[in-house]
C-alpha cells in the first residue's frame, strides 16, 4: 500500500488531501479472524453455487443433441443486444419491462462494481501491487453504484406493488388444466418463491445503503470520507437522517458491525442460491435468448429416420436446448395472456406446459442416477405430466413463442409431444379420420383428386396446366381454396386478377396434394413427409419461376419447411404479388371503396412470416379506411383453425376463438367489412359472425374479393363477379345465394 501512495504522490488535491486516501478501506477495524471467517463463508457460497450449476448442466446434458451451436458469436451479440435494449421485456408491458430494466441495470452495475473491488483487492493488488480504486475513479464509482442501487430498489418496489396490488391475471399461477385440490393446482410455492426473491433482493439493497450511511456517520470525523459523502447521495441522505435521530459515531460503528455481517451473509446466500431458484434466470434466460431459433415453430424439426418412436414421450427425449428453455421461463405469463386457446377457457396455458415439464425435469433429471424409463413419461395425468387435452388445445399460432421475452419455444415442444400422441393413436376420432382421408385422397375434404381444379370450370378462360407447359408463376392453391364452395369464389376471383394482369400462370391440377402444414402441426410427421415429398416431386417436374398462393398455411410450409426436404422455391403470398401489380398499373382500380374495414392478420402470414404490410397497403390503395383491432400484427388473435384444430370440433357451449375475435371487431364503430386474407379465416369468421350474433352489423370478406370489386372486367366476366355492396339487402342476397348452393 505504501508503494502506491508514493507512486501516486502527484495526485494530491488542492485541499492537501491525498487522492489515494479517498477510498473505502475494506474490512476496516475487522479482526483478522473475522476476515478469514468471511472468506470461508464466501468460499462455501461459491462451492454451493458451483455444485448447483453442475447439477443444472448435468440435467441439460441428459437431453438430446441439438444443432443450434452455429454462428455462436452472432448469437451472442444478438443476445447482448436484446438484453441491453430490454426490447422483449418492454413489449406489451412497458412498466414491468422498465422496472425490470432498472433491476437488471442495478444488478449488473453492482455486480460489476463488486467484481472491480475483488479484482483489485484479491487479485491485482496482492499479485502485482496494482491499485486503482481511489480518488476520482472511486468517487465516480460510488456515485454510479449509488444510483444503480437506487434504481434497483425502485424497480423492486414496483414489482412488489405489481404483485400485491395490480392483481394481474397473468400472475395468477392457478392452473387452467387442473382442479382445485389437485396437488399442483395453485402452485403457491411459486408465489412464495417470488416474494422470497423480491424481499431478499430488496433487503440486500436497503442494508447496503444503510451500511453505507452507517460508515459515513461512524467516520464523520475523517475528512477523506465525510467531505466526499455527496458522491454517494443516497448514503449521505441516510447518514444525515441517522445523525438527526441521534446516532453517534461510536453507536454507528457498533451498529455497522452487525449490519455488515447481515448484509454480507445475505448477499452470499443469494449468490449460492442462484442455481437452485428463479434467480438462475439471470443465466438461463440469457442462454435461452442466445440459442433462440428464428424459425421456431415456422419450421418444425424433422424426425430422424432411425429414431425409434416419433416425438417426445420421455423427458429425456427433449433436447438440451428444450431443457434450457424450460429453465429460462420466469413465469411472466405473457404467453398465457396471448394464447387464443387460453382466452376461450381451453385447458391450455403455454406457461403451464413449460412449468410442468420443468418441474418434471428437475425432479427426474437432477438426481445422480436417472430414474427408470417408466418414470420419465411426460404424458399422463400425474404431477408434472402434460394432459393430452392440453396438447390438443394448441392452435400452433405462435402467439406464445412470439411474445416470450426469453425466447422459450413452446410450440415445437407441444408438436413433438403430439407426435407421440399421434403414434399412439391418442387423438379425436374425427382428426384420425381426417388424417386417414388425407392419406387416401390427398386432401382433407375427402374429395376425389380429379375434383381439385373443378372450380376452374366456371371461369371464362383456361388456366394452364403447369405439368404440361412452362409458366412464370405456379399457383399452389391449397385444400380450402380448392374444395370449399365459399372459398372457390375467392379462388376464382384471384384467377381473374392474375388473368387480367396478364400473368403467365398455371396450376398442378390433380398433381397438387394438401401442402401438409397443418398435418405437420397435428404431429403426423410421416403423413407430412409423404405430402411434402410428393408435392416437391410434382413441383420439381414443372418449369416455373416462382410460386404464388392464397393460402398462408401452404405458404409457410413451402417457404420454411420444404427446403428441409429438398424443395427450395421462391414463393410469395398473393398479397405481395397483387400489391406490386396494382402499383405497376397492371391491375387498374376502376373505383375506390369507401368501406370502413378492419384487418385480421392470419397467423401464418403475419406472425409466422412477417407479412403485415402488403394487405394493409392494398386496403389503403383500394380507398378503404382501416381501423385496427386491439390485437393486431404480431399480437393478432388466431381464428382457432390452426394446428389441425379445424379438424377437431370445439367443445359445445364454450366460446370459440373466432367468436372472441368477432366481439373484438364489433367494438369498432361503423365497421363495415372484416377483411381476412386466408381461406380458413374466411370459413371460420363467416361462421363466427353468425354464431356470435353480429350478422347484419358487418360482413367478412377476403381481401381478394375487395380487390375484385374494384376491377373492371370486359363482359361476360362481370356477371360472375359477386357484387359486394354494404347494405342489408345485399347481405340477405348473400344468404340466399349460399342457401341455393347448399341445395
Amino acid at each position, binding site marked *: 500500500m505504501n508503494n502506491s501512495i508514493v507512486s501516486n504522490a502527484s495526485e494530491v488535491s488542492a485541499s492537501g488531501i491525498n487522492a489515494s486516501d479517498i477510498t473505502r478501506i475494506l474490512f476496516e477495524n475487522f479482526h483478522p479472524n473475522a476476515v478469514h471467517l468471511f472468506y470461508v463463508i464466501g468460499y462455501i457460497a461459491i462451492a454451493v453455487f458451483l455444485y448447483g450449476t453442475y447439477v443444472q448442466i448435468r440435467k441439460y446434458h441428459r437431453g438430446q443433441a441439438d444443432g443450434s451451436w452455429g454462428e455462436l458469436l452472432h448469437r451472442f451479440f444478438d443476445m447482448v443486444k436484446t438484453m441491453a435494449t430490454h426490447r422483449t421485456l418492454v413489449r406489451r408491458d412497458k412498466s414491468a419491462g422498465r422496472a425490470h430494466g432498472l433491476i437488471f441495470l442495478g444488478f449488473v452495475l453492482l455486480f460489476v462494481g463488486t467484481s472491480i473491488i475483488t479484482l483489485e483487492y484479491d487479485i491485482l493488488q496482492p499479485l502485482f501491487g496494482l491499485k486503482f480504486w481511489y480518488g476520482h475513479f472511486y468517487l465516480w464509482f460510488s456515485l454510479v453504484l449509488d444510483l444503480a442501487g437506487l434504481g434497483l430498489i425502485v424497480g423492486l418496489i414496483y414489482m412488489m406493488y405489481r404483485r400485491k396490488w395490480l392483481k394481474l391475471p397473468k400472475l395468477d399461477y392457478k392452473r387452467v388444466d387442473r382442479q382445485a385440490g389437485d396437488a399442483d393446482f395453485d402452485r403457491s410455492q411459486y408465489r412464495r418463491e417470488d416474494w422470497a426473491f423480491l424481499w431478499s433482493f430488496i433487503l440486500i439493497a436497503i442494508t447496503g445503503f444503510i451500511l453505507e450511511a452507517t460508515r459515513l456517520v461512524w467516520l464523520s470525523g475523517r475528512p477523506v470520507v465525510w467531505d466526499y459523502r455527496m458522491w454517494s447521495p443516497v448514503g449521505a441522505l441516510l447518514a444525515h437522517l441517522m445523525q438527526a435521530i441521534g446516532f453517534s459515531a461510536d453507536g454507528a460503528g457498533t451498529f455497522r458491525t452487525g449490519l455488515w455481517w447481515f448484509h454480507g451473509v445475505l448477499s452470499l446466500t443469494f449468490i449460492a442460491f442462484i442455481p437452485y431458484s428463479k434467480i438462475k434466470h439471470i443465466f438461463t434466460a440469457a442462454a435461452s435468448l442466445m440459442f433462440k431459433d428464428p424459425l421456431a415453430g415456422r419450421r418444425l424439426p424433422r424426425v430422424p429416420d432411425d429414431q425409434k418412436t*416419433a416425438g417426445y414421450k420421455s423427458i429425456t427425449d427433449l433436447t438440451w436446448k428444450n431443457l434450457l428453455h424450460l429453465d429460462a421461463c420466469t413465469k411472466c405469463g405473457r404467453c398465457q395472456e396471448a394464447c387464443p386457446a387460453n382466452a376461450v377457457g381451453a385447458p391450455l396455458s403455454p406457461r403451464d406446459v413449460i412449468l410442468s415439464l420443468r418441474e418434471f425435469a428437475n425432479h427426474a433429471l437432477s438426481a445422480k442416477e436417472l430414474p427408470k424409463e417408466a418414470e420419465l413419461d411426460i404424458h399422463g395425468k400425474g404431477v408434472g405430466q402434460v394432459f393430452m387435452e392440453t396438447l390438443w388445445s394448441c392452435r400452433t399460432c405462435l402467439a406464445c413463442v412470439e411474445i416470450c421475452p426469453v425466447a422459450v419455444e413452446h410450440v415445437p415442444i407441444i408438436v413433438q409431444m403430439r407426435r407421440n400422441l399421434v403414434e399412439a*393413436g391418442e387423438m379425436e376420432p374425427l382428426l384420425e379420420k381426417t388424417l386417414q382421408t388425407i392419406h387416401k385422397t390427398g386432401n382433407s375434404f375427402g*374429395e376425389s383428386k380429379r375434383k381439385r381444379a373443378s372450380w376452374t370450370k366456371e371461369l371464362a378462360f383456361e388456366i394452364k396446366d403447369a405439368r404440361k407447359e412452362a409458366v412464370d408463376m405456379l399457383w399452389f392453391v391449397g385444400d380450402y381454396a380448392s374444395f370449399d364452395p365459399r372459398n372457390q369464389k375467392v379462388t376464382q376471383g384471384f384467377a381473374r386478377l392474375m388473368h387480367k394482369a396478364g400473368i403467365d400462370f398455371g396450376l398442378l391440377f390433380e398433381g397438387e396434394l394438401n401442402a401438409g402444414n397443418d398435418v405437420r402441426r397435428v404431429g*403426423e410427421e*410421416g403423413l407430412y413427409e409423404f405430402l411434402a415429398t410428393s408435392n416437391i416431386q410434382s413441383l420439381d417436374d414443372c418449369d416455373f419461376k416462382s410460386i404464388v398462393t392464397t393460402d398462408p398455411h401452404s405458404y409457410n410450409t413451402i417457404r420454411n419447411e420444404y427446403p428441409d426436404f429438398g424443395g427450395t422455391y421462391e414463393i410469395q403470398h398473393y398479397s405481395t404479388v397483387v400489391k406490386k401489380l396494382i402499383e405497376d398499373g397492371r391491375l387498374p382500380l376502376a373505383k375506390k371503396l369507401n368501406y370502413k374495414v378492419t384487418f385480421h392478420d392470419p397467423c401464418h402470414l403475419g406472425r409466422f412470416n412477417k407479412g403485415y404490410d402488403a394487405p394493409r397497403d392494398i386496403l389503403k390503395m383500394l380507398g378503404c379506411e382501416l381501423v385496427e383491432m386491439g390485437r393486431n400484427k404480431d399480437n393478432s388473435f388466431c381464428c382457432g383453425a390452426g394446428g389441425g384444430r379445424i379438424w377437431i370440433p370445439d367443445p359445445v357451449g364454450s366460446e370459440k376463438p373466432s367468436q372472441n375475435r368477432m366481439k373484438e371487431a364489433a367494438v369498432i364503430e361503423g365497421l363495415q367489412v372484416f377483411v381476412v386474407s386466408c381461406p380458413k379465416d374466411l370459413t371460420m369468421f363467416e361462421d363466427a359472425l353468425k354464431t356470435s350474433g353480429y350478422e347484419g352489423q358487418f360482413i367478412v370478406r377476403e381481401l381478394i374479393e375487395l380487390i375484385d370489386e374494384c376491377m373492371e372486367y370486359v363482359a361476360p366476366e362481370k356477371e360472375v363477379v359477386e357484387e359486394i355492396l354494404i347494405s342489408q339487402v345485399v347481405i340477405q342476397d348473400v344468404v340466399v345465394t349460399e342457401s341455393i348452393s347448399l341445395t
Partner: protein
Amino acid sequence: MKILVAVKQVAALDEDFEIRADGKDVEEDFLLYDLNEWDDFSLEEAMKIKESSDAEVEVIVVSVGPDRVDESLRKCLAKGADRAIRVWDEAIQGSDAIAIGQILAAVAKKEAPDMVFAGVQSSDQSYASTGIATAAYLNWPHAAVVADLQYQPGANKAIIRRELEGGMLQEVEINCPAVLTIQLGINKPRYASLRGIKQAAAKPIEEVSLADIGLSAGNVGADSSMSRVRRMYIPAKGRAQMIEGTLAEQAAKIIQIINEFKGA
C-alpha cells in the same frame, strides 16, 4: 400361439367412375384401394389378445391379391402384426368368395393357427361369406358377426357374443380353433401412423403361390367358382321432383302424390 387374421384390400369408387368395357366391373382407374373397414376391427381384436397375454402370441395377417395389396398389409404390420402373407397367382382373378375361402383355408392348414379372424364382410363386394367358407374348408367351428370375444390364448373354448336382429345378442361357447367373423364396433382400432407404416416396410411380407399351399390354378378363378359376375351396372335413378307453387298448391300436390302411391 398363433392368430391368423384374413384381410382384404377393398376398392372404393372415385367420383364420376366408369364401368369397364366388358361391363363386369368398374374401370380400374376409378378405384381407390384401402384396407377393408371390418379388418381394422378383427386385426385390433387379435392385437388386443396379443398385448394382454403373457404368453407369446403371433399375429399373422393374410390376404389374397396382387402387388398393390402389400400397401394394406404394411398398414397391418404397422399396427403390430408380426408378419404378413400374400397369396397371388394370375389364375386367382375372378374367384368368388368361396374360392377365396378355399385359398385362405389352405394357408390356415399350413400355418396351423389357434384362431382365424376375418371381417364380417368386405365393403366392396359384401358377400359376407369368405370367412365362413374358410371355416367350411377347414371343417372348423365358426361364428359370424362377433360383437364380443372372451378368449384366453391357448384355451380350447371361447365365449363370444354374436349380433342378431333387433339389437339382440346371442352368447355362444365355441370350441377352438375356430373361425370368427368380427363385427364393426367390437373394439376401437388403433391408428397406423404413416411413420409406422414406413417402418413396417422392414417387416416381411411373404409372397405365396398356389403351389406353396397345395393348390393349383384349377382350384381357383372364375371357372372354378360357384358363382360368376354377369354384369355390373348403375340402376336407373328413382324420380324426384321439386314441388312449386303456393303452400296450398304444394299441399294439394303432395296429397295427389300420396294418393297415387296408395293406388287410389
